[in-house]
C-alpha cells in the first residue's frame, strides 16, 4: 500500500454510495490503492455474468426494482458499466 494513501477513502466511498439516489448507485465500487488487479478482473467477470444473465433470460436482475417490482431507469446499467 502506498504510504500517502488516506484510509478514510473507503468510508467516503461508502457514504457516496449510500447518498447516491436510487437507480444511480454503482453496482460495484473499488477503492484499491494497491491496484492488485481486482478492478480489471471484476470488470471482465461482471460483463460475463451480465451476458450469462441475459442468455438465461434473467437480465431483469441487472437493474434495481422499486417496491412495486417495476424496474427503474438506471444511469449506469451493469453491462455498460462493466463493458
Amino acid at each position: 500500500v502506498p504510504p500517502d494513501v488516506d484510509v478514510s477513502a473507503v468510508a467516503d466511498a461508502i457514504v457516496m454510495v449510500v447518498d447516491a439516489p436510487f437507480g444511480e448507485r454503482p453496482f460495484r465500487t473499488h477503492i484499491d490503492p494497491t491496484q492488485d488487479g481486482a478492478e480489471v478482473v471484476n470488470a471482465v467477470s461482471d460483463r460475463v455474468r451480465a451476458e450469462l444473465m441475459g442468455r438465461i433470460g434473467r437480465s431483469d436482475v441487472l437493474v434495481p426494482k422499486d417496491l412495486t417490482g417495476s424496474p427503474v431507469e438506471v444511469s449506469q446499467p451493469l453491462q455498460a458499466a462493466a463493458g
Partner: protein
Amino acid sequence: MNYVVVVTGPSSGFGALAARALALAGHTVYASMRETKGRNAAQVKELGRYAADHGVDLRSIELDVGSEKSCEAAIQEIVLKNGRLDVLVHNAGHMVFGPAEAFTPEQLTEQYDVNVWALRPLPASPIILRTQDPPLTARASPSTRQALTRDFPSKFSRPSLRLCRPTWM
C-alpha cells in the same frame, strides 16, 4: 435522505471510519458488535462520546453476525425503534496472517465461519425489502481476487465469499 444504517464490524478499521462518516452525513447509524457490555464496553463508550461531541445519531447495538438469534434480536430492536432499516454495511471479518501450515483445520474453519458464512445478508434482508426506500446493501470487501501466501487464512475466505455471494462481491 436520512437512512437507518447498520454497520457490522465497527470496532476498528474501515468499519469504525464508515460508521462515523455515515453518522456525520446525517444518517442514523447502528454500530453492531459483540459483547457491548463486556470486552467492547470501551468501544460503546467511545461511540457514545463521538455521537455527543459531533451531535450525530450514532448508536451501538449488540449483534453477533455468527448467531441467527442475535441477528434477529438486533434487527427487531432497530425496526421497533425506527420502523425500518434501510442500509446494511456488512464489514465484519477477521484478519489472520500466516502461512497455511501455521494453522490447524479448526482455526481455518473458525476463520471461514466468520468471514464467509456469517456474511450472508443477515435476517435483515426481508425487512429491508419492506421498507419505504428500496433496499441497499454495501460492503467493504478487500482481497477478493488476489491472494498472497503469507495472508492465506484471511485471503482464501474472500474469494470464497465472492463465489457464494456473487451478487455481493
